[in-house]
């Protein structure tokens, strides 16, 4: 048995479990929605920013397809609809920024789709601002720092693929009196943000985001599948370690 085969076996099991739980949750709703203080805090910050007329920024990272962390760019796009409630979109204070042209194009399409479901572009032109301040990680940083709303920062959410440069983005937002939330980033990005961002999701908790705050059965099925796979992995690692210790492997 090769490692590639093991990998495909894991993907196959995950697909089957996901489909099975998805069907199961049609009639049963027994899996508890997990509480996350960071996500609650993000919701409060978003509502507070709308009420006070402050800006809200969503940074989708600088790569859609990263080889080291392949799911992060896609994850950022999957989270975007959670920020696009009708109230949030018509208010006009939400801007979505990224350092990757593809991400910006897809984000713009998603935002326009949600906007057109509730409003007519002919009657109301505000919508969501999508922008590409710079096409590389550092030019994105320079662009974000120079365009950050002075003294009007409400809520900033950092998602997707980014590195240690995110510390500068968060510092700019916090310095302008805003709140920062992060669910994404490489290991370096997550560790530097641990230093000054209170509302931070690390590791596998990052992938709780698309289902939050209003979890549907797809999210519940996803979380349960993740938990089952994690359990398999833990058991596999422990058994592997024991077998290695006794000299079987």
């Amino acid at each position, binding site marked *: 048995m090769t490692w590639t085969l093991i990998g495909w076996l894991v993907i196959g099991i995950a697909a089957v479990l996901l489909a099975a739980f998805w069907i199961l949750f049609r009639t049963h709703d027994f899996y508890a929605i997990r509480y996350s203080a960071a996500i609650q805090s993000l919701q409060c910050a978003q509502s507070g920013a709308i009420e006070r007329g402050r800006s809200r920024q969503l940074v989708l990272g600088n790569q859609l397809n990263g080889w080291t962390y392949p799911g992060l760019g896609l994850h950022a796009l*999957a989270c975007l609809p959670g920020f696009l409630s009708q109230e949030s979109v018509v208010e006009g204070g939400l801007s979505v920024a990224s350092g990757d042209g593809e991400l910006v194009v897809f984000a713009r399409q998603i935002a326009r789709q949600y906007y057109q479901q509730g409003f007519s572009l002919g009657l109301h032109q505000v919508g969501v601002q999508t922008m590409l301040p710079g096409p590389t990680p550092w030019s994105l940083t320079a662009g974000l720092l120079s365009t950050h709303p002075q003294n009007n920062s409400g809520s900033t959410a950092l998602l997707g693929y980014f590195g240690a440069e995110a510390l500068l983005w968060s510092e700019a937002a916090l310095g302008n009196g805003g709140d920062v939330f992060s669910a994404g980033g490489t290991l370096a990005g997550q560790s530097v943000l641990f230093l000054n961002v209170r509302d931070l999701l690390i590791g596998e908790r990052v992938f709780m985001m698309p289902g939050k705050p209003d979890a549907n059965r797809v999210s519940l099925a996803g979380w349960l599948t993740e938990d089952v796979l994690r359990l398999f992995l833990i058991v596999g690692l422990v058994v592997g370690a024991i077998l290695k210790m006794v000299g079987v492997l």
Partner: protein
Amino acid sequence: MKKLPAIIVSVAIGLTVLAGYFFQAELSTVLSLIVDWGILLAGVAGLIGLGYLAQYHLTRLMKREKGAFFSLITLLVFLFTLVAGLTLTTQNPFYRNLILNVQVSVEASLLAVLAVTLMFASLKLIRTRGWTPMSVGFLISALISLVLNLGVGMTESGTVLGELVAFWRRLPIVGARGILLGMAIGGLIVGLRILLGMHRPYGEE
């Protein structure tokens, strides 16, 4: 319902690519065609993204917003780079030196700012997060790693101290692997949810 054809096409393409890893010989021609289309679409999307970059700075310039002068510089440099790249090509040594010498120095200056910010953020850690086990553990492990990376405690392997130091050096790698495994599972589930058409970020959940 109007999105159904798009969902069917995307799911079919996704599953074909996935199946292509198992049946490489049978699906190689279809796979190469799909990958070529994907690269083409990604290239066009990237080009449109660059259009947004120009549009964004042009709008700032037209509205005379704060910092519009920097947008003017960005646009001028963007145009110069584009024209030079098209006429001289990216293989031209002058062009390559010009771009690298500007880009590297600008990035290095931002890296220097990051280093200072990182130091101040480290000093503020307890104020930001309080005296929690996580923050204290983070600080202690960061300090130990810094000291070990200075070369302190470098002894021959086989001794108790040497094994202890080697253990401490391995700990961050172990932690990183744990986080990466969790992220890999999370990424896999997000991908499968989209691939199987269960999660549709573009609407009509």
